[in-house]
């Protein structure tokens, strides 16, 4: 895995490579989630990336309506559902969601307006009921759940992703640097200030590191990506835990702030000798350097879907009934340590029945049919057992007192 060097750093080829490598994982999840003969969708998606921009137009995926074992599928518009939904929140899955919602619009004509304002914004929007659903990669705290205006909030997992350390060092564009949790913490704490610091050099024998100042780039908004990253740093660095801690917004000891995953990737791309942390897809799409991270088992692991899926598997036993769980720094030789679920937040008791119907249908589609888009965009599909738990949650949502999910 670690020997896998990308000679061709073209975005498409990398994405294709990623998806090819982990199509297996996608298969497993897809098959596990529903015992449907779903081989057809998975194969075209891997191939679809070869030809640019032409999205598969949602036609092939929806065509084979699964008839098996009481399977529920969203196949088209539904009478009486709201035609617009507003969501706000995490930028971590924004690339995935913008794909989901674009396809979903073609399928059902429902317009899902998703604005990536950050996980903090998603939590705030759902608590204040200023949007129909929120999205976050930082599970809400008990105190936040208590503050919510509209009652009980459900965390419905949509995907798994990796937060990667991404850097822009002129001259080392194709080199994959290795980092330990301690060096990352020290860089973001500002105790390591130069790229050729002995601590970085120790893990990267043979790489000629420049004697330049490191510009660290972090999120300026309330961010689930920040939460995952700082959660990881807190897990591996005692100094980080006491000085900074883990949250969607921490008091960064130094560096430049960028808004959203897009913003951080943009800043890293624009700033030579910088390092930041983003969801995998943002680094891949921008051909930015992606670091290998040392996991709990002592291996330097490249961020990829297998590593993330491994983390989910390792944490699977510990998943709480409400599906709020952190999966950073898990056991396993191939486990990528900075991994996370990403959730959509919805009220259990919704007041608007039409919106509740539209939302439950969207969530169902998102946790089932839409999972096939995950691999192409660098997110891991949900493990089967999580999908099953999600199903129960979706079915428990009520609109104006009645169960909201129509079952198709």
């Amino acid at each position, binding site marked *: 895995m670690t020997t896998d060097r990308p000679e061709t750093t073209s975005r498409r080829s990398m994405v294709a490579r990623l998806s090819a490598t982990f199509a297996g994982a996608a298969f497993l999840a897809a098959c596990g989630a529903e015992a449907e003969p779903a081989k057809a969708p998975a194969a075209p998606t891997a191939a679809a990336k070869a030809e640019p921009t032409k999205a598969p137009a949602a036609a092939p995926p929806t065509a084979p309506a699964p008839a098996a074992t009481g399977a529920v599928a969203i196949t088209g518009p539904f009478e009486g559902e709201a035609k617009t939904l507003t969501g706000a929140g995490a930028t971590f899955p924004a690339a995935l969601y*913008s794909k989901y919602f*674009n396809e979903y*619009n073609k399928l059902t004509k429902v*317009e899902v*307006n998703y*604005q990536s304002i950050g996980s903090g914004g998603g939590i705030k929007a759902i608590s204040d009921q200023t949007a129909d659903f929120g999205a976050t990669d930082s599970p809400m705290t008990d105190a936040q759940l208590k503050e919510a205006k509209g009652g009980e909030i459900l965390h419905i997992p949509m995907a798994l992703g990796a937060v990667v350390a991404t850097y822009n060092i002129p001259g080392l564009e194709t080199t994959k640097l290795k980092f330990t949790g301690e060096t990352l913490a020290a860089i973001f704490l500002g105790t390591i200030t130069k790229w050729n610091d002995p601590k970085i050099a120790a893990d990267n024998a043979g790489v000629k590191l420049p004697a330049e100042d490191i510009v660290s780039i972090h999120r300026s908004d309330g961010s689930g990506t920040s939460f995952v990253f700082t959660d990881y740093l807190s897990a591996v660095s005692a100094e980080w835990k006491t000085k900074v801690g883990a949250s969607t917004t921490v008091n960064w000891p130094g560096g430049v702030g960028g808004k959203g995953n897009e*913003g951080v990737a943009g800043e890293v*791309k624009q700033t030579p000798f910088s390092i930041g942390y983003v969801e995998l897809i943002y680094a891949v*799409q921008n051909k930015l350097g992606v670091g290998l991270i040392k996991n709990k088992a002592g291996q330097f692991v490249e961020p990829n879907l297998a590593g993330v899926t491994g983390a989910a598997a390792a944490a699977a036993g510990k998943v709480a009934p409400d599906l709020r769980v952190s999966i950073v720094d898990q056991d396993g030789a191939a486990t990528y340590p900075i991994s996370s679920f990403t959730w959509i937040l919805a009220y259990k008791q919704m007041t608007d029945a039409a919106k509740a119907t539209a939302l439950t249908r969207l969530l169902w589609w998102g946790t089932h049919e839409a999972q096939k888009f995950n691999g192409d965009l660098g997110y891991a599909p949900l493990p089967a057992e999580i999908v099953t738990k999600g199903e129960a949650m979706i079915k428990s949502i009520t609109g104006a007192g009645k169960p909201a999910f129509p079952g198709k």
Partner: protein
Amino acid sequence: MADPSTLSFKVSPVSPLAPDRRYVARKFYGRFMAGLITVAALVGVSVLWIILGYVIVRGAPAINLDFFTQRPLPYGEVGGGIAPSITGTLLILAVAALIGVPVGLGCGIYLAEYGRGSVVEVIRFCSDLLAGLPSIVVGVFVWAILVRQVVGNFSGIAGAVSLAIIMVPIIVRTVEAVLLLVPYTLREAALALGVPKWRMVISVVLPSARAGIITGLVLSVARAGGETAPLLLTTLGNQFFSWNLLEPIGAIPIQLYNYAVAPYPDWHTKAWGSALVLISVIGILSTAVRVATRRQNR
């Protein structure tokens, strides 16, 4: 200098105009300062052209039919446009004008025609304060009232109200100024004919100040059209077409911002393209105003 005796000492025995060394130095210094001042003006003028140049050169490649008719595509995909933002901006601006223009006009009429004494001072002062208010603070205010309470979610109407609050003081100031320019004799003539005051204001005073009032209105719309900060807090943005004022609506400045900070080169081009569209709209409005006012001056 003021003392005449000192002055008389300074008078040169030869000729006051004869060029001595001091005179040359002074003259040189004067030239030097003139040069600096010219440079300052040059800097001021060129900054505008530099920025406009960038917007035109980098924005032009984004302009095509799709840009005006399509909605934005998912992350990283090439193509799409800003159509929902254009219609959204137009809708929000129209509603903002619907709220802001009557209020601004009324307040301006009050200041020029009805108010008296210290009340005028107070209202004028408040209007000036409102004009100097950071727009982001207006956004916070409207969020607290409309997004959190009255409407209950991010919505187009909240954006329109915040833009209206930004427009009002601009309208008030221009309307008051131009109404005070209307000759009093016109008013007297109208009143002498037995016209009630409200008819006098509507059919005599306002029409004679028409061009000036329109200037104020257009300036306020142009200013509001480029506002971004309050919209980020109130309308949120929308990548789909939306005509529902109670739901989030797209706007060019928000779309521009989203495109600009994202890491995709195609989106950067689209950000410049959006800037070009925004500037063109404002430019057309301002030019129209300039032509209109010039006509009135003649």
